[in-house]
């Protein structure tokens, strides 16, 4: 009992500190410098630990995934072909117009930095840490993708690591475009992706547009390629959930990327000069 009485001030102090931290972070909407400090402290350790644990986790993925490696290989090929098809459709629809729209005219110039996931957030957050940082040229608000499609966007960057907010995070909203009809809309995450269902919610801005299951969705792109580079495949429409009397069309989108088993990802780094020029224009 004496011990309890002695540590009660410590308890109160720690609770007050925690509440203060929550308050500051809440005011900065989760972007307080505390996270940067923590990333600086824990980043290198996580990098080492993630590299060590990657074969282990990969083994679990292989064990828990499809039993036959042939099936997984075929599925991978299928995904790849589907992504190519989506790209081809985009190109075919309006290549020149799209290039203008996406500010992709000219020599491209996008560079992709490969990185691998070394840590992941808890059950209530859809964030991962990759082992590429500012030393590799990664900066905040850059698109992260993998071979299947869009993964997310970089939020916090340290010298060696970067934190990626997945597209399925409830805080993430991605501007998208229907690959076929070129209707634009927004895709937002529904949360709990790392743990289970990873459907996205699509809302089209046009009230007259129609949605059909199976339609491909690509990113619309942002100014300077930040936070989202244009033309990255996101997923396909699974279910149309809009009501008849709804003002806008909405649907559930199944992303191409497997967010529960992220391995190697790429960070799209827009060319600085290009971004500056386009921003100027």
């Amino acid at each position, binding site marked *: 009992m004496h011990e309890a009485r002695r540590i009660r001030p410590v308890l109160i102090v*720690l609770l007050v500190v*925690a509440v203060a931290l*929550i308050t500051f972070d809440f005011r900065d909407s989760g972007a307080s410098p505390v996270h940067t400090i*923590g990333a600086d402290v824990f980043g290198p350790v996580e990098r080492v630990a993630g590299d060590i644990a990657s074969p282990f986790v990969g083994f679990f993925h292989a064990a828990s995934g499809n039993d036959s490696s042939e099936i997984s290989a075929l599925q991978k090929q299928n995904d790849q072909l589907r992504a190519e098809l989506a790209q081809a459709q985009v190109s075919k629809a309006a290549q020149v117009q799209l290039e203008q729209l996406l500010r992709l005219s000219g020599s491209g110039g996008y560079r992709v930095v490969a990185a691998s996931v070394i840590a*992941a957030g*808890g*059950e*209530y957050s*859809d964030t991962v840490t990759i082992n590429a940082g500012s030393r590799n040229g990664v900066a905040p608000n850059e698109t992260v993708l993998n071979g299947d499609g869009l993964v997310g966007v970089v939020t916090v960057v340290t010298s060696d690591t970067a934190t990626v907010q997945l597209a399925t995070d409830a805080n993430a909203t991605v501007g998208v475009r229907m690959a076929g009809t070129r209707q634009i809309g927004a895709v937002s995450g529904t949360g709990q992706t790392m743990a289970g269902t990873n459907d996205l919610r699509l809302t089209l801005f046009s009230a007259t547009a129609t949605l059909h299951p199976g339609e491909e969705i690509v990113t619309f792109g942002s100014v300077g390629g930040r936070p989202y580079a244009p033309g990255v495949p996101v997923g396909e429409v699974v279910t149309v959930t809009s009501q008849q009397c709804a003002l806008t069309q909405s649907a559930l989108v199944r992303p191409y990327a497997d967010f529960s088993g992220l391995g190697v990802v790429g960070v799209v780094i827009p060319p600085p000069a290009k971004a500056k020029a386009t921003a100027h224009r």
Partner: protein
Amino acid sequence: MIARRALVCPIIVFLAVIGQLAVVNRLPLPGVGKPDIVLLVVAAIGIAAGPATGLLAGFAGGLAIDVAPPGGHLAGEYALVYCLVGYGCGRIRDLAQGSSAERSAMASLTVMAVGVAAGEAGKAGLGMMLSDPNVTGPVVKHVLPAAIIYDLLLCPFVLWFVSLTVGTPASERAPEPQFPPSLRLAPAFRLASAGAAPRLRLAGTTPPPVPPPVRTEPRLRLAGGRSSLSPRTNAAFSSAPGSALSGRPTPRLNLASAGRGNQLGGASALRAPARLQGKTPGKGWLRPPRQASRTVRQRRSPGKGWIVAGKPAAAGSWQPKTPGKGWVRPPRPPGMTTWRRRSPGKGWIVAGRPATPVNWQPRSPGKGWARSPKPQAAPKRKSPGRGWIRPAASGALAAPAFRRSSPGKGWLRPAAPPPAPRIKSPGRGWLRSAAPGALAAPSWRPSSPGKGWLRPAKPPPAPRLKSPGRGWLRPARPPRQNWYTKGPSTRWLRRGRRKRLLLGGRR
């Protein structure tokens, strides 16, 4: 213990944080929800190490999870929840454990399960309170049960691991000798007193069948004495299995006034006859018998020990030194002319020294007390080494005649081994033979009370009435000071309560 915790706890928490972020969160576990290793570790630390450590570990682990790179929630959320969980688990453990001294693994596990479930609910609730878009009602409804189930499945393993590494609080407490029921002191003493020491028994037990004819003082007599002095002891010896006691003088433990007409033993020693220069027996309580033919001798306090062996009959060159930690010392063999009282060192009950008439060594040779330098000089009456009643050299035990005189490895034991083998050397300093490692039964080792027997730091609670608590064969305060300079214990002795306690049934 504190240093170990200060070293181990941060390591465990740090490893848990890294493992949670780098491994567990990435595992494609079935279902929604993931086990929270950090929460489990924090709860286990709170249970194993107390609320203060759990509080600090919880705050540190939660803050690390908050600010470590993947993040995904506000800084301070998990720190708040985890430090409450760590503190609460330790607190509940303390409260639940308050009355019962023993720690139940099931109770700890229950507390941990409750704490972990509350922690998961607290995480979800705090996220919803802070309007985290990732923590909404439907999400929590799916994630929370799965996360709790995962955590409960991992509870025993984490608790076991943390208890193993951090250490349970039971080990931080004072060493409490836990005697198995079959090895409590009373049966041990009864067993011993059946053969070797019929007078050494617990208060309240049945008195020896034959009261000593001459001695009026309470006595404790260990081992066989001379036949002329203690026929009753000899009878007891001869009745013991395997011990055919001959007339040879054997080392003996005379507790209290074993001598004829002794005025020094026990309480009478405190009365301090004038020719004893008014000295009190010091901490020793049961003093050796005074020899009738003794002239003037200095009666010093026997030091920490309180049962001192009988003194030699011829006290010409008697050196009344304090026996040190030794406790029960055998009487001097009959024909011994010179007898030196030395501290028996670590040993506790020391056998009688050989009768080395002229050239006994003035110092104790090494660890053993009275390790007789010349085995040839007194082959039968060798001095014991470290152990208690033991020949000087272990090899000398081969002589059966000598074995009868010194019980050797066993404690309070005639030549034949006692039926209960666990009464063998109980550990350091307590009635121990020379080679403790080979002889100490492992079951005894945690129960050996440390340096001295009959003066454990904390006596076992259960046999307090019978076991060597304060009232039994021991002064109220064992050796720490010269208690005979203090009033109360002396008064306590003068009241004759010792007699009543020692010879409980014979009052």
